[in-house]
Each structure stands twice: as C-alpha cells, then as structure tokens.
C-alpha cells in the first residue's frame, strides 16, 4: 500500500522526506476519527506555492466587471460588497435595489471573507489580513496589510516547507489524490 502511494520525482521531497511524510500520514490515520476534517488532508500531494512577493504585489483597482462566481456578500449603507471566491471583491452602488450599479472590482488573491466597520473594509488574502479605506467606495484604497495573521488552509510545516517558501494554494493535479476515506 505504501509503495503505491509514493510519488517519485516531486522535486520538493527527496525519498527520505517522502518516507517521513508517509509515516506522518499513517500516524495521522490513528486519529482519523478524531480529525474527520471537511476537506481531505493529504500530506503526500505536491503543493502549488504562491510566492509571497506575488501574494503581496501592488493591487490595481479595476472598474466594475462581470462577476465570475459569487461568494459571501455584505451590505454597507447603500453599497454591496460581493466576494468572488479567491479572486477579490466587487463593489456595487445599491442605492436603488432595482438597478444596482457596478463600481469597482478589487483583486485580492485568496479572498473569501469581507466585513466593513466605520469605512474600513477588512478582507482576508490567504494568510494576510488587508484593510481598505472604503469611504469613497468607487475608489477603495489599501491602507494596511497584517502579514501572516490568518490561519492557512495548509500549513507549510506539514510539507516540510519554510513559511517564506510561499502560500500553498493547491496541489498538482497528478498528485496522489486519495482522501482519508480511502486510506
């Protein structure tokens, strides 16, 4: 069983590290019933990393654009803030709910949640928390980035990676994709 699950030539793991990872996975099997995580947690897959300088590259606000997919929404006064999962958030003028008007799209990598208080919008960006001044909602301004303050979906240490290697944003498709239920 273990031989079949080893992926060779990953480039990120040498043989020894793979064996450590398998050992970790097998030891975690013992606590499977305690964990029962929503998403399968596989330490043998090959992570895709987003370098930190790309995560923290300058943000260019776009004019309103079509929404590709929608996540969570917040209402703030006459405005709607609509998350597009992992992409950022759209801002609409909703003064007239019969004809909401697209104002801006703010690209925020990894964004899933937003909330607004006193004209400051807080948004997650993978492991960072961003603060935008939205006093003028058609031209929000990034005013602060609290780096590394959000719990990551996948901890780098589980993959024997330093935190400064980047953020794990997914896994290579040809990785072993078995889940807990098939272990």
């Amino acid at each position, binding site marked *: 069983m273990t031989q079949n699950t080893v992926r060779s030539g990953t480039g990120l793991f040498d043989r020894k590290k793979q064996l450590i990872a398998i050992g970790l996975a097998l030891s975690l099997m013992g606590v499977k019933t305690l964990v029962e995580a929503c998403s399968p947690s596989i330490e043998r897959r090959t992570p895709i990393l987003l370098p930190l300088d790309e995560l923290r590259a300058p943000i260019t606000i776009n004019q309103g654009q079509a929404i*590709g997919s*929608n996540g*969570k929404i917040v*209402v*703030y006064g006459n405005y709607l803030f609509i998350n597009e999962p992992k992409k950022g958030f759209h801002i609409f003028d909703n003064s007239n709910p*019969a*004809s909401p008007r697209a104002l801006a799209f703010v690209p925020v990598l990894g964004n899933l949640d937003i*909330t607004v208080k006193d004209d400051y919008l807080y948004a997650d960006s993978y492991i960072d928390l961003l*603060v935008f001044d939205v006093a003028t909602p058609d031209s929000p301004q990034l005013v602060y980035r609290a780096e590394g303050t959000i*719990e990551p979906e996948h901890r780098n240490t589980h993959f024997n990676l330093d935190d400064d290697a980047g953020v794990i944003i997914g896994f290579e498709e040809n990785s072993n994709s078995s889940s807990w239920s098939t272990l």
Partner: protein
Amino acid sequence: MMLIQAAKILLISAVLITLHGCCGAPAAGSGPTTSISGSTAAMLTYEDTLYTLHNGVIKIFDLSQPDVPEPTHTLYASQAETLFISKAHLFVGGMSGVRTFSLADPLAPAEVSFYHHARGCDPIIIEGDIGYVTLRNRPGCNGDVNRLEILDFSDPSKPKELARYDMQFPYGLTVLPDHLAVCEDNYGLALLDINWAGEIPDVSEAARYENIHCFDLIYAGNNLIATASDGIYQFSVDNEFLGLQSKIPVGITAHAATTAGAP
C-alpha cells in the same frame, strides 16, 4: 407568526434604520456603522474587535486603531464554519454543534456552552432568544441529516432544543418579518411559518421559490438579498410574497443584462 419578541426587535431595528438612515448593528446615535453579513459569515466585528474564522481557527484583532488591526488572541474551534454575533455573544456554527462565547471582554471571548447536534455543515443565526440552525448533508462534511433546528438561547450558557424540522438541503437563512427564510440550493428558497402558540414551535412551509437556487440571505431595510450560483437577487418582502427588484448576473449569465424578469 414569528415570536412576538422577535417581531418587536425587528420593528425597533426598522425604526432605528429609518431614523439614522444607515445600516448595521443597531448602534445608537451617530456611532459606528457596521456592515450586515449573511448567515455564512466568517469575519465579523463587535465593538472594536474583529473576529476571523479560517480553517478551524478564530483569530481576534484589536481595532482600537482601525486601520492597523492588531492580532491579539487565538481561539481553536475545529470544524467551525460560521460566526454570528448577538446579545454580546459570539455564536460559532460548526459541523458538530454550536459553540457560544461571551463577549463580556471582546478581546478574550469565554466559552459558555457547546450545543452538540447531529453532524452536518452550517450556520446558526440568533433572533431575540431563539437560535435557528441548519444542518445540511453536504458531501465531505460527514453529515447525516438535512434539517432545521430551533433552539432556546435565552440563557446562552444553557441552550435547549425546541424543535426539529426536516428539510431537503438547508443552507443560509435569515429572519423576515413574518417568516424564516431558508436557502436550499437547487431546491429553492423556502419561507417557513413558525407558529409559537403551542408548547413547542410548529414549523410549516408557507411558500417556496423553486427557481431561486440560493445559498445565503441578507435582509436589510425590507430588501431581501439572495445569493445564488447564477446571480444575486433582490426582493421586496410582503408577507410570503417576494417581489423581484433586480438580479446581478453571475457566471455564464453575467454577460446578460444586469436586471432580469420574474424569478
């Protein structure tokens, strides 16, 4: 009929919104304004504190200096998915139950109860003393039921189950003046009548909008916003009659007009 107390709170909220012409928590006067979130929110503020929930960890930020949030405490809430704040308490909805924290010290929430329910994903909302929880049998969530649970949270440290109501695929929810609105994804938007006349609340379906495949709801200022995979719908609410005001298209429909006809 909804609980009279809940109706009163809604009425008071409506008056406050009318008086101050703004949104958010029913803060007095020209105090802070806060956005209104749907039931699936995982990031909320309370007073000068921000709560973020990601991957089973609640990070707490001090917003004394609002443009420089400072991380302070961390709470571990494995399998938690949603946050709701009411009555100076933080309610954390998760796969196995509802964890309730007192926000007497907003920067250091203290757990006061854990209401264990059947396995299933999803949110809790609180209206007055009543909690409404949906449990949904989503693949990957180890769920085994699809139902609404109504809980008595008059004492947040001792939540009590009042009623169960089987549903098809309940997800996000919100309280309307006369109904409880529950998204059921492909099964549509259900408006439930909750009769409090008897010893236990009696739930029945008042209306179902089958074409609104929504996953979450926000109700603010007689405007019901339903987020669905094909768009963001806005309705005026008149008892169980929803009047479509607009649809912001999403996905493959996003290139169509920004408003649409009847649902």
